[in-house]
């Protein structure tokens, strides 16, 4: 299993969530976060914004589904400008459902 953490624009996050749901990946967690990228935030006129609001989508999927999820995120979150976001993939060794206590997604 892999954990996918996508840090996206708050306004595209909902599109991504819908796209993922249509592709069959309904389960996800959304967190409102603040962050900056390589551009060190954004400067508008004389005002410098150090940290920009972002939405982090966190989901755990089977290894074979990673490519589909990545493609969906890429399709929905792409605007071509700086700040579209980043996706990180990390390993997950075990998953449990609390209600049933069973292993697996």
């Amino acid at each position, binding site marked *: 299993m892999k*954990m996918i953490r996508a840090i996206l624009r708050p306004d595209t996050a909902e599109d991504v969530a819908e796209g993922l749901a249509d592709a069959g990946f309904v*389960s996800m*967690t959304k967190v409102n976060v603040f962050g900056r990228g390589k551009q060190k935030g954004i400067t508008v006129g004389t005002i410098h914004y150090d940290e920009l609001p972002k939405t982090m989508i966190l989901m755990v999927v089977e290894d074979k589904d990673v490519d589909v999820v990545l493609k969906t995120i890429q399709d929905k979150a792409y605007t071509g400008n700086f700040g579209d976001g980043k996706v990180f993939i990390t*390993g997950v060794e075990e998953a*449990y*459902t*609390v209600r049933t206590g069973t292993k697996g997604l």
Partner: protein
Amino acid sequence: MKEIIAIIRPKKVGPTRNALEQLGFNSMTATAVLGRGAQRGIASEVRAELSPELLAGNAGGMKYIPKRLVSIMVHDFDVDKVVKSIIEVNQTLQIGDGKIFVCPLEDAIRVRTQERGESAV
């Protein structure tokens, strides 16, 4: 070292904390998050008679449900104990109890002393 990420009901954070404290795991991080599971939000989470149309369109439901994400770093040999205890405390047998993920953790550093590895957890 392993990171245990549990996404649980907000109401259950207190009991979970107490249970883990009794086992000797005092440190944890909790974040308020929004989420949904295989049921697409709240329309089918409540135990009530809902018409099929309502469930299908998810009309009038909640897209996301407030949850708490609890992250606990533990040694490899403590994983089973912690997971078992979280399941015990959080189980209500109703949909929406949450999920637990166990992820590998490469390194840990204690900022105050700059210890690294197992002793820093």
